[in-house]
């Protein structure tokens, strides 16, 4: 049975259509395996080979992978929620309530989106602390640390813009307080607040602007920076696995 499946699989991989899409062809040699990674636009961000230690749980606690996984859940559930949500007043609040009480599986998707959002913020922070305490931000990975800080900021902005969308009292006052914090920026604070809200108060314009930021601009930026982040892991010599440097290992401790 398994052999027959494998036979069909290899037959499929030998077809012209398959080979026009996946150029690497058949084979299990190291070269072929490398080519599979190198010749895919998605996989080429990743390294062809990783050290066994780099994929052990101990080194990373898989926090980066888990952050990415929550992001993927948020994209999928977010797109589904968009199908029932109008970013206008007063429909937004009613749509949110409809998702909870009327739409089949709506409450599940909404809660999955909400809890994944909380989890992502938590995981991104945990990832940052893990990288910091393992010293993985050091040369040659300084730039990837910076990309990570950008991703942290994007995560927080995504969280903040999503906060307004239910259009309930909590959302309204949280954004009122948050946007008033922005006014404290010297000279341009009030202007930035005006541009962000599209008015002087949190109103329909603000809701629409936050919706566009939350569903289009910030996710696109996040995908872009996630791609750079992954690609830089490969370019910086893979995941930092730690361990003493040879020079330090050879140094005798003080007597």
């Amino acid at each position, binding site marked *: 049975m398994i052999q027959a499946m494998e036979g069909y699989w290899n037959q499929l991989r030998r077809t012209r259509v398959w080979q026009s899409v996946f150029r690497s062809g058949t084979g299990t040699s190291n070269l072929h395996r490398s080519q599979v990674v190198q010749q895919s636009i998605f996989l080429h961000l990743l390294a062809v080979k990783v050290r066994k230690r780099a994929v052990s749980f101990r080194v990373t606690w898989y926090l980066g992978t888990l952050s990415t996984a929550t992001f993927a859940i948020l994209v999928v559930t977010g797109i589904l929620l968009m199908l029932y949500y109008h970013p206008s007043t007063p429909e937004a609040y009613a749509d949110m309530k409809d998702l909870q009480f009327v739409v089949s599986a709506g409450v599940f998707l909404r809660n999955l989106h909400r809890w994944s959002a909380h989890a992502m913020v938590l995981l991104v922070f945990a990832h940052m602390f893990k990288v910091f305490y393992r010293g993985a931000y050091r040369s040659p990975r300084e730039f990837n640390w910076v990309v990570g800080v950008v991703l942290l900021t994007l995560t927080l902005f995504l969280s903040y813009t999503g906060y307004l969308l239910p259009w309930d009292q909590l959302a309204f*006052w949280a954004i*009122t*307080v948050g*946007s*008033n*914090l922005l006014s404290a920026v010297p000279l341009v604070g009030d202007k930035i607040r*005006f*541009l962000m809200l*599209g*008015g*002087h*108060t949190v*109103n*329909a*314009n603000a809701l629409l602007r936050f919706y566009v930021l939350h569903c289009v601009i910030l996710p696109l930026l996040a995908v872009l920076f996630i791609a750079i982040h992954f690609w830089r892991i490969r370019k910086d010599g893979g995941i930092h696995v730690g361990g003493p440097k040879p020079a330090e290992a050879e140094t005798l401790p003080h007597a």
Partner: protein
Amino acid sequence: MSDTLSAIEPPSELTRRETLVRLGVGSFAVAACGACVFGYRFLSPNVLYEPSTIVNLGKPAAFSAGSFTADPESGIYAVHATEGFYSLSAVCTHLGCLTVWKPDAGIIACPCHGSKFDRHGVKLEGPAPKPLPWLKVWLSDEGDLMVDRSVFVPPNQYLRT
């Protein structure tokens, strides 16, 4: 021949390529500045569908002497004190939450971060950096009590009717 050419054309330090690159970069910079101005102007709405800052509170006789009336819709307090009428902004000076009048304690309290003010808007406690501003109050030609939420006046200016 080359001598005559150099005599006519002063030697330029820029090659053709450099000149074109500078032109290209220059026009890109001009276009980028234009895009910034364009973007800024596009993002600033020219028409706002926000409620008027001027509030008509109706006839002053509706406010009994000593009354302290909250109007959460417009975010103001209308007070009929012994000295006359005055109006306070109900928007907390800390981070813009709507404050609440507590008639039992005779104070104004903010639910967000716990600032408290007395009936004249003076801060009693909490993180608010400033007292609640006094608003411009006047009588319309029809004799209605009017408040402009956008015009702050110095405290202790009362309207006598």
